[in-house]
């Protein structure tokens, strides 16, 4: 068997390749937008000279492959270009918003992952009992509602009715961590409701799948307690699918939360992306697209690598 380090390197190589392909797709996709960028941005009344100057500034007169290369190399060096809408550095626009997005995602993950793994384990432990069914139905109902619906319900309950948490999750850098957490709790709870069902059901299914194994019967015949069988014998062997679904949901929390951001007026990257698309602010769109893709790919890559490391067969091959 190949040493696990090679498997990891190969996986990382694939991840890198995927990012390059995505960057191409983003670039070409923007190229394919109908109409001339300069005219679209400057409007019908722009003079010929302003349009020319604008094209020059954007290097639009260069052939596409050269522009792609320049864009990519600049991007790698941290130079995301300037916003067309207001001329500010894109990195400055994106930076703190991306940090906000990550903050919300991590807060949600900190609640949702332990919750859903625990619920999944318990549902597997008490499978086909009333408890199992109640968990399943509850989480499934949450996932069936649109996100904004859950968001408004939570706002009605916790901001309007009881006034415990703010309905606007407007955070800024001067706030303390506690204040920030207080502000993002409602959006985080909304997202928790959305992602928990998926992760919980996957955990439950993975564990139940493993429970049919001969080594589980062996553990039972050794007189091991059922809870220990689930925690120690079943869970480690069902890690791989659990890690994968957690990674997928984490990626969703970073990339797909724009609706929740809008509802709570949260200054995240998703909202910026939507604004920029409507304003045709191409450098911002490209940069945020690539950042989202990067987050998605690296999370999935991490999931695969962790799955490899969770498997003693692969882990061991390093030494032998």
């Amino acid at each position: 068997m190949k040493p696990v380090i090679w498997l990891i390197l190969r996986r990382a190589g694939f991840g890198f390749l995927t990012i390059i392909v995505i960057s191409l797709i983003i670039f070409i996709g923007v190229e394919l937008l109908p109409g001339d960028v300069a005219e679209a941005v400057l409007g019908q009344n722009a003079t010929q000279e302003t349009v020319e100057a604008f094209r020059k500034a954007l290097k639009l007169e260069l052939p596409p492959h050269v522009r792609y290369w320049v864009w990519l190399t600049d991007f790698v060096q941290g130079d995301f270009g300037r916003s067309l809408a207001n001329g500010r550095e894109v990195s400055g626009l994106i930076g703190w918003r991306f940090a906000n997005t990550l903050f919300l995602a991590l807060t949600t993950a900190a609640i949702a992952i332990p919750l859903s793994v625990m619920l999944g384990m318990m549902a597997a432990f008490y499978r086909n009992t009333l408890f199992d069914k109640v968990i399943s139905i509850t989480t499934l109902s949450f996932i069936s509602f649109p996100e904004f619906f859950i968001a408004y319900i939570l706002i009605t309950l916790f901001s309007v009715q009881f006034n415990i948490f703010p309905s606007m999750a407007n955070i800024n850098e001067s706030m303390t961590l506690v204040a920030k957490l207080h502000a993002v709790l409602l959006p985080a709870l909304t997202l928790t409701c959305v992602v928990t069902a998926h992760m919980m059901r996957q955990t439950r299914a993975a564990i139940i799948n493993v429970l049919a194994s001969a080594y589980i019967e062996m553990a039972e015949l050794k007189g091991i307690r059922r809870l220990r069988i689930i925690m120690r014998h079943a869970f480690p062997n069902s890690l791989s699918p659990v890690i994968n679904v957690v990674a997928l949901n984490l990626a969703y929390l970073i990339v797909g939360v724009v609706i929740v951001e809008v509802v709570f007026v949260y200054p995240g990257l998703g909202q910026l992306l939507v604004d920029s698309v409507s304003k045709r602010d191409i450098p911002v769109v490209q940069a945020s697209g690539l950042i989202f893709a990067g987050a998605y790919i690296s999370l999935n890559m991490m999931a695969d690598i962790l799955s490899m490391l969770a498997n003693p067969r692969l882990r061991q091959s390093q030494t032998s």
Partner: protein
Amino acid sequence: MKSENLLQIRNLFIEGFYENQWNTIVDDISLDLKRGEVLGLIGESGAGKSTIGLAAMGYTRQGCRLASGSIKLDGMELFGASEEQLRSIRGEKIAYVAQSAAASFNPSHRIIHQYAEGPVQHGIMDYEQARKNAVKIYDRLFLPDPEKIGLKYPHELSGGQLQRAMVAMSMSCEPDIIVFDEPTTALDVTTQIEVLASVKEITEKMNKAALYITHDLAVVAQVAHRIMVLRNGGLVEEGETRRLIKKPKEKYTRDLLSVRTLSEDKNDEDKTDVILKVKDVYATYNGVDNVLEDINLTVRQGRTVALVGESGSGKSTLARVITGMLPATRGEISFLGQPLSPDLKHRDKNNLRRLQMIYQMPDTALNPKQTVRTVIGRPLDFYFGTRGKEAEKRIRDLLTRIELEPAKYIDRLTPELSGGEKQRICIARALAAEPDFIICDEVTSALDQLVAEGILALLQDLQREMNISYLFITHDLATVKAIADKIVIMLEGRIIEQGEKTEVLTPPHHAYTDKLLASVPVMDPDWLDNLLDKRASTFLS
């Protein structure tokens, strides 16, 4: 002692839920097991022997239930005992050794942690004490490097070592009774001996009582004091081992005993038409190490060549090379005098048709979504373009040929069939192509003894009628003795001995052939002891 019998089962009925109702699967079984005694439970699959073994631990598999009767373990009634009571006796008073250690060890934990889990969880000793005991017992069971072997993960041990590690694990709480459930079935004959020796070590020297479950009478004869023969959940016959083997009362027991005497010795030298010739063949999986080296063999028309060796000896690889799935890197394969392209993709349809294959696992070799008609009809359509009425007639002919009633089987889905029936369908599928040559890869090793004999007899009949040649891959020398005309013995990718059956089976042998032959259990209760004594004395001298 609370009672004379460690285990006392009375009028036990167990039911299984299938075909939408509860059916009796263990039918009025009573048994007694005393300290220091080994009771053999023997029967084919479906005889209920594993179910009885598990019931002795108060355990039933999913979809089964204890219906009535009494199971007393050292005076304690298990029937109707609470989950917690049952949990406290499992592992501690009565332990279990499963058929497949590879599947029954948790792949995520080290061997030693799985050993120690029982005693630590039952509160008998701490981890350090359990670890020390483990080393002692590993040593006793001749596991290599007993101090360190426990630190390995299950996949790092060989099948025989793992099975012995499992025997050791069953001893971790020093239980009174151990249930051995087919502990050697998945092993080669040579590794089977190691495990049997460790079973004997434990039951005799450590004075444990044991239930030994197997389908192989020759194996159980080595370890058991008494034997119960089971069939369809009921008792056929029970008796002291020597008596049962010498004077079986029931016909079924006699059938189990009188096994593998199928072949008439075809020692005719007049057949000279060579069907398959393999000359100087080499093959590799990674381009560097040869997995097959210098392979030469011929198969004649209407004859059976048995290819024998342990797992990993390259027998199945040779089959892959002959079929072209793994192209040979050097050498030549000719079929009916014509050179055969090494790669499957370059062979014409006619050559593909004339060379068929039957696999070890009929379950995985058949599409579970297809009916018998589709499975057998497919090669008819593919090779001959036969469809419709004509195909229907051929399928029915073929089913008759493999001794399955066409009307009853033709519309069945393959998962509805038993293992032996499935293997017969695989044979019919191969026959549908009207082949000259069939490679049989361990076709009986997944089947019960009597079913396997039925398959072997069928293959021999077909050979007689249709003059087909077989390359019969197996690790079971008893099968070889029964059906082969010629024997080829492989070790580490090379052929180390080949010749006519009588020639190979008559001494002097190659040293490895000798070991292989000596490892096949014979129906003699003293065989294992004699063999182990002999090995010990040659080791000392």
